[in-house]
């Protein structure tokens, strides 16, 4: 969609600094630094978890201690000191508010600065928001309306308490704790997250949205999201992320699991603008996220759309396991890196069922001294008759000091599969910039226009309100990269 006037206006008003870089002054309750079995017991006790959950956490933690760091990504950083971070932090004076009126006004103010006025969203946009402030889910809106439809939309802590059978059945079924070191740490120390359950035949009556935000210094955020869509159901889920400016690097290791049964469809959209570090590469979030969905049933569909503009390092590969016959997986991605940011992102499409189809459209934009890698795997199992994949990877370079890399892996065990791969690399040309400027469009606005055009195919898969925000983010993240 086109860059709207409102977007231009909003961008013009933005400070050149990271807009979400403020710290909310709310008393926090937090566990001592570091992670060991006692800390995990404390987290579990704070959340009033049943014994089976604590056991599951401890099992993951013991395994985590034996695991090596993942090494495949083209990213560079000093080894993480896991004992120099806090693993539990919760706003102190919040005791499960029943409505927005009970929420600390300062918290609401924080969200307003982020441009997500909950009140307004509640009234105007019809978006149910489950806002995660550091580790505890503080407010959940629209519960009742969703309840009428039979949809469960709650924090993962509540789900552990209220729907233990479902959590036992599904949590860790798509991303087991043994998957990789970051996912394993999450399984041990996750503090909150979101659970969504859509019953058979139900089309979720509204877009579901969660805003994640890391506030406390040196707090890792380890949220966990689990979405289960029963037969013939549909849900669209939006996830936005921001964090204030900090000098040190903070770890964000989330796990997202999606499960789609026969004829179900899950659309998962992410706009990520965690603090990227300053122009010299100091600070910023390490965004090490494991996201995976399984199309368990026939004709199921999972669609990932992501706009990744923030974080010092982004390491994520939202993937689809296409188990059911005729199931469909999609991945639409925009990753923008500037200054010293590094992104290694892509997807895995695992074709197991017959007639499974997948589509990958990745747009990488590198500016400054950044490095941007697309890494993707398409695997066709021997029994995946008539599987099809289409992959398109486009890279756009701005300036002379950045890097763009495309690393596609293809493993095909079925000769009947159809695989297409297209890749392009281009530069924002002097011709294009001059053409726009000769029409009166100033240089940074011209660059934003050109880059938004480059990303259009992906941005148009975002829900409307997110698409506008994403366009703003494109402008903000490219500031200072021309002229």
């Amino acid at each position: 969609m086109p860059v709207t006037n409102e977007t231009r206006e909003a961008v013009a008003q933005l400070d050149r600094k990271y807009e979400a870089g403020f710290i909310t002054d709310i008393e926090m309750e937090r566990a001592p630094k570091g992670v060991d079995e006692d800390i995990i017991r404390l987290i579990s006790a704070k959340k009033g978890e049943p014994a089976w959950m604590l056991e599951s956490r401890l099992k993951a933690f013991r395994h985590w201690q034996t695991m090596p760091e993942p090494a495949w990504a083209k990213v560079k950083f000093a080894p993480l000191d896991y004992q120099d971070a806090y693993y539990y932090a919760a706003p102190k004076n919040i005791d499960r508010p029943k409505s927005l009126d009970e929420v600390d006004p300062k918290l609401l103010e924080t969200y307003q600065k982020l441009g997500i006025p909950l009140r307004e969203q509640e009234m105007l946009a019809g978006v149910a928001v489950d806002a995660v402030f550091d580790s505890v889910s503080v407010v959940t809106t629209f519960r009742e309306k969703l309840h009428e439809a039979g949809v469960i939309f709650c924090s993962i802590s509540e789900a552990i308490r209220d729907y233990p059978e479902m959590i036992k059945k599904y949590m860790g079924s798509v991303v087991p704790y043994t998957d990789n070191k970051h996912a394993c740490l999450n399984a041990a120390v996750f503090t909150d997250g979101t659970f969504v359950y859509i019953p058979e035949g139900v089309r979720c009556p509204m877009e579901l949205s969660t805003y994640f935000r890391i506030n406390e210094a040196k707090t890792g955020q380890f949220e966990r999201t689990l979405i289960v869509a029963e037969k013939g159901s549909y849900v669209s889920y939006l996830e936005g992320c921001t964090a204030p400016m900090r000098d040190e690097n903070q770890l964000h290791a989330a796990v997202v699991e999606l499960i789609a049964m026969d004829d179900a469809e899950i659309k998962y959209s992410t706009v990520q603008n965690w603090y990227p570090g300053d122009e010299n590469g100091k600070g910023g979030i390490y965004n090490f996220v494991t996201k995976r969905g399984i199309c368990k049933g026939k004709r199921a569909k999972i669609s990932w759309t992501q706009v990744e503009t923030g974080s010092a390092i982004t390491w994520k590969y939202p993937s689809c396991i296409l188990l059911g016959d005729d199931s469909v997986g999609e991945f639409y991605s925009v990753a923008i890196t500037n200054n010293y940011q590094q992104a290694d992102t892509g997807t895995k499409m695992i074709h197991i069922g017959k007639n499974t189809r997948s589509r990958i459209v990745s747009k990488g934009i590198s500016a400054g001294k950044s490095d941007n890698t697309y890494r993707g795997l398409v695997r066709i199992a021997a029994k995946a008759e008539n599987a099809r994949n289409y992959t398109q990877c486009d890279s756009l370079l701005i300036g002379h000091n950045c890097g763009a890399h495309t690393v596609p892996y293809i493993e095909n065990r079925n000769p009947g599969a159809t695989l297409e791969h297209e890749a392009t690399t281009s530069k924002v040309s002097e011709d294009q910039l001059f053409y726009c400027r000769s029409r009166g469009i100033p240089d940074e606005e011209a660059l934003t226009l050109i880059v938004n055009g480059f990303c259009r195919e992906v941005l148009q898969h975002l829900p409307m309100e997110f698409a506008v925000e994403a366009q703003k983010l494109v402008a903000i993240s490219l500031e200072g990269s021309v002229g």
Partner: protein
Amino acid sequence: MLKIENLHATVDGREVLKGLTLEINSGEVHAIMGPNGSGKSTLSYVLAGRDGYDVTEGKITFMGHDIGEMAPEERAALGIFLAFQYPVEIPGVTTTTFLKTAVNALRKAHGAAEISPVDFLKLQKEKTAQLGMDADFLKRGVNVGFSGGEKKRNEVLQLAMLQPKLAILDETDSGLDIDALKVVAAGVNALRAEDRSFLIITHYQRLLNYIKPDVVHVLAKGKIQRTGGPELALELEENGYADFTGEAA
């Protein structure tokens, strides 16, 4: 309106314009004709302010402003418009978005509020219809997959939408068949006005059959060699540029 005095300009350090002097008054249509390599396109880029085209001597005054050091967008805001010889493709940006962004950028530079979406669409519809353009064309990426004729028509559409004070047409006739040429010329003629001047850069006399100039200049070796009325164009068509380049025709 536009006054160019003893203009020397370099492209990548090579001097291309070597003392060009030219004055265009409000409402006049000037044609600059010349052989390949005479500096015609360089002149258009120097006037529009393209990076890499540097004025080393002389002065360009437009509407009383010395524009020699101005950014392209500042010149556009003053009312200079360049119709490109080779219009540039911008994939994923629809022609409508591009036009609207440009219209609003100019309004902003003039301290005016943004155009309302309704007014914009009305204006766009009117201008598109005048140029006999298909509305479908507005939804496509700027110049992406356009034929040569469509690209040139898109330049004239932008000209009509942005209403500049000085329009520079750089070889707008190149690559056009006779029908497209007539449409483009009619579009330009419709924009002729008391307060709008044109600088038409062309190699051939053909376009000048449809857009009648007030003044014709011959540019060769980086300088204006001769200035005359419309009859000069016909003379050039007859005799070629050999007299000015010192080469046999």
